[in-house]
């Protein structure tokens, strides 16, 4: 075989992967077959090629048998390509003289019959042997990592990640869509199972974010565009205007005081509509930043242009300006942490629980505001009809573990339901019933909290509630909400009349999760939660290098888990930043200039903007630092002048012929 490296001596290694491969594929037969192929000097099968002895075997064989090409038939290159390249390097060979064949995911795991599966493995190995002979020595490039970090989302996940990075001396941009940071945690009253006040532990961290010299905080802002690659992201952020200049505002709130609306009149998002706000408002007293927002949807100035503008008069610093426009800023960062959080399930989607129909049916998030001392009722639990409840029914798993809505367990509802049961009992002395499918209390101190609630006399009824109705079967039920439920421990259908019903709503991905996913070029699982690179071993990484996940945007999580994950994401970003640079795969595209006709077909196709056009010579040019090796341009080039390292035409053709050679 003609080759630029003289005579070719190939070593073939067929891995059993315990019984993962060997259970279906006859590995020894594959190795024996490979031994008979042209240029194969050694062919072995081995229990675990990725093990230390397996790797040493490779390195030793390279030396002893003077091998200059290696084929490993084992699992996916995603898992162990790196391992075997290192092993080959240890044996003194260029790592790109090694080729991996996936006979696990592509073969043993997807087939049931031994003979055809073994045949397929032989096909694939035959292709790899022909291919590897053609492979060239390649060198890895390297790119510098920009030390700044973008954190998207200012809930507890984003706050914790941003502070960790900033404390390590890195410059952080924290972008939050809402007018304040704090996220859902700011709405909670107490946290389970310790019952410490959510605001007391959160607001100091919020203030730290604002005060930190390394953090640039942009609230009421969103990420518009992300370009570039690991180490070198260009990000466009839109800063929506509050119509109040943050640099001038002192946070005195005179504008709110003096608004022409003397009384708050509009739906208060932070209080779930249980309270009212004015068109100019601060979401909650400890909001960060302390700059109010003017909502153009409700402000008279924007609706009719005819307003006395008492807010403008009241502002001593002249910070209010109705002419302000949204601003766009471009920043450069090396890494990005996505911490966009979750959305609470819309309880109106389960009509049989009467949310929106019966006024005394609440969501759990509404109760958080109702029991909160800084909430719309100053912590007084009064229902929409003005009465204090004497009995409360808490329905678990609303929008969770349900074929009709969401199939997943939202993980936090059992515990927050217990917490709300405790708080409601404490605030009102009401009799509280929990309706659960299974109690899930696997965290630290969680089960103990459940036991405490049992001792406090909260009732637990195992069964999924069929409906909440105002139908009174007898006079004792008149004026009550009746929960109809099959008590599966008692084995009978029960009717439990209560004054107030709380729906423990589950956690859902944000409605625009798909757009956000596309923006950052990351992946979503079917349900819309962002997908981690590996569920066990890379839980905060995404499939895009340099972009990490933190908090509930990856799946339902409680506060401790969210904070732990945010810390992990920050550590991953730090690891990249402190390394200073990252090795780059050499499988990039390149132009054979003499064949290039300058048609420019490739230029707009490149998703990474890596191809430019040199008009002086009428040729395309690939920037190897930007190229991710996707191959789009290579496939599209009409003259075949775009080629790709590691995927050269002759390599591919040899592989095809090899695969077809075994019958």
């Amino acid at each position, binding site marked *: 075989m003609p080759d630029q490296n003289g005579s070719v001596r190939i070593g073939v290694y067929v891995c059993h992967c315990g019984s993962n491969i060997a259970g279906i594929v006859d590995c020894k037969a594959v190795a024996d077959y490979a031994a008979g192929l042209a240029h194969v000097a050694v062919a072995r099968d081995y229990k675990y090629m990725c093990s230390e002895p397996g790797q040493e075997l490779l390195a030793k064989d390279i030396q002893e048998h003077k091998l200059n090409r290696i084929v490993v038939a084992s699992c996916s290159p995603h898992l162990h390509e790196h391992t075997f390249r290192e092993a080959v390097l240890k044996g003194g060979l260029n790592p790109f003289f090694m080729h991996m064949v996936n006979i696990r995911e592509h073969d043993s795991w997807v087939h049931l019959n031994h003979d055809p599966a073994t045949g397929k493995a032989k096909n694939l190995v035959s292709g790899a042997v022909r291919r590897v002979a053609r492979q060239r020595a390649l060198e890895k490039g390297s790119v510098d990592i920009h030390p700044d970090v973008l954190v998207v989302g200012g809930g507890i996940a984003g706050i914790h990640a941003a502070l960790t990075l900033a404390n390590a001396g890195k410059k952080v941009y924290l972008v939050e869509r809402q007018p304040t940071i704090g996220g859902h945690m700011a709405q909670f009253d107490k946290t389970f199972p310790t019952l410490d006040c959510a605001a007391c532990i959160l607001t100091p961290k919020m203030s730290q974010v604002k005060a930190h010299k390394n953090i640039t905080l942009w609230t009421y802002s969103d990420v518009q565009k992300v370009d570039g690659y690991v180490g070198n992201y260009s990000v466009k952020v839109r800063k929506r205007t509050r119509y109040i200049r943050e640099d001038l505002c002192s946070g005195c709130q005179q504008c709110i005081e003096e608004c022409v609306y003397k009384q708050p009149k509009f739906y208060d998002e932070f209080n779930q509509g249980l309270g009212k706000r004015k068109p100019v408002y601060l979401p909650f007293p400890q909001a960060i930043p302390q700059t109010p927002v003017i909502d153009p949807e409700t402000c008279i100035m924007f609706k009719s242009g005819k307003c006395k503008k008492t807010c403008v008069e009241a502002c001593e610093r002249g910070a209010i300006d109705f002419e302000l426009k949204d601003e766009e800023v471009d920043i450069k960062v090396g890494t990005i942490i996505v911490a966009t959080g979750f959305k609470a399930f819309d309880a109106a989607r389960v*009509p*049989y629980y009467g949310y929106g129909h019966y006024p005394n049916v609440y969501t759990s998030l509404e109760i958080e505001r109702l029991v909160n001392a800084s909430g719309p009722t100053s912590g007084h639990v009064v229902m929409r009809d003005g009465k204090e409840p004497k009995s409360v029914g808490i329905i678990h798993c609303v929008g969770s573990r349900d074929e009709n809505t969401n199939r997943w367990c939202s993980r936090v509802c059992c515990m927050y339901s217990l917490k709300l049961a405790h708080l409601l009992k404490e605030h009102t002395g009401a009799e509280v019933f929990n309706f659960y499918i299974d109690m899930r209390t696997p965290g630290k101190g969680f089960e103990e909290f459940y036991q405490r609630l049992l001792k406090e006399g909260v009732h637990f009824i195992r069964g999924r509630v069929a409906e909440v*109705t*105002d*139908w*009174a*079967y007898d006079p004792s039920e008149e004026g009550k909400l009746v929960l109809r439920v099959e008590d599966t421990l008692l084995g009978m259908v029960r009717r439990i009349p209560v004054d107030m019903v709380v729906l423990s709503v589950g956690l859902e991905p944000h409605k625009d999760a798909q757009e956000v996913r596309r923006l950052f070029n990351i992946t979503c699982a079917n349900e819309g939660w962002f997908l981690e690179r590996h569920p066990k071993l890379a839980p905060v990484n995404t499939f895009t290098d340099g972009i990490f996940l933190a908090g509930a945007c990856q799946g339902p999580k409680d506060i401790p888990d969210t904070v732990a994950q945010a810390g992990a994401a920050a550590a991953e970003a730090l690891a990249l930043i402190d390394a200073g640079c990252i090795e780059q795969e050499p499988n990039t595209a390149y132009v054979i200039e003499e064949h290039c006709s300058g048609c420019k077909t490739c230029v707009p196709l490149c998703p990474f903007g890596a191809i430019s056009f040199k008009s002086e010579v009428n040729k395309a040019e690939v920037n190897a630092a930007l190229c991710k090796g996707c191959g789009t341009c290579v496939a599209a080039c009409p003259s075949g002048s775009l080629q790709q390292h590691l995927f050269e035409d002759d390599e591919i053709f040899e592989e095809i012929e090899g695969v077809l050679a075994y019958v």
Partner: protein
Amino acid sequence: MSANGFLYFPGCSLRATGAAYEESLLELFRVLAIPLTELDDWNCCGATSYMAVDEGSAFLLSSRNLSIAAEMGGHEIMAPCAACYLVLRKTLDYVEHYPEIRAKVEAGLRAAELKAFTGVKVRHPLEILYNEVGVKALKQKTTRKWKGGKIACYYGCQAVRPYDEVDRPHNPMRMDELMNAAGAPTIDYALKTKCCGGSLTGTIHEVGVNLNEILLREAVRKGAGCIVTICPLCQFNLDTYQGEMRARGVAIDIPVLYFTQVLAWALGGDIGKIGLKRSISGRAAIEKWFSSEEAPAYA
């Protein structure tokens, strides 16, 4: 809706216990000038016992009606009885989605020298009035002022489940909206789709009547002066056993009408032609509400 209106499938009940439904429906559609053509040589829809005992025969019975409809060139068949509606609708669904049922049905139709049906739609008058006439138009066409107090709209089970074309399965509201359009206020009736007892009133009488009583008492408790239904079996159950309840000491005497009776009356239909005299319960109230200077009292 085509200019020819709808093919009308009365089914057994509209010619027997539910005669008031047919009379008021025909009068209502006459007032609205929507033509109805009765299906030629129609047969049993295949409901209840058939469906429970021998599904195959039920589908065949139902299919014969659908085939005749296709033959007559009418592609929209209106079935006012909730049971007829459900069986016909279910047949369309099953024949479409289950090849083995389709094969049986087609073989049966061939044996009877009938053609396979395609493109036939099954519709219910509630949904027709809501979608084709509309709440707004009904409001404009209303000529008589409702005097009957609040109405409990009772939808029953079959028309709204499992298919959601007549109305949404949980908390259906279209009948409420039509009543409101005709000037009649409605109550928030939590039991609007709960069981009326169905045929249990005939088989396990006590159980059936108890279910009935629950519906009636709750309607009265919520301040309804009248119950309005879209199903002849519901109407029969709710209307018929009130005397029995009174004999047990339950103070109940409330009219149970078809929604078409209220609408036909409100839209100026002939009071003598909407089956009011057929009601058993709440006669005094009916007589009071529906008496009119422009037409003789019905009795």
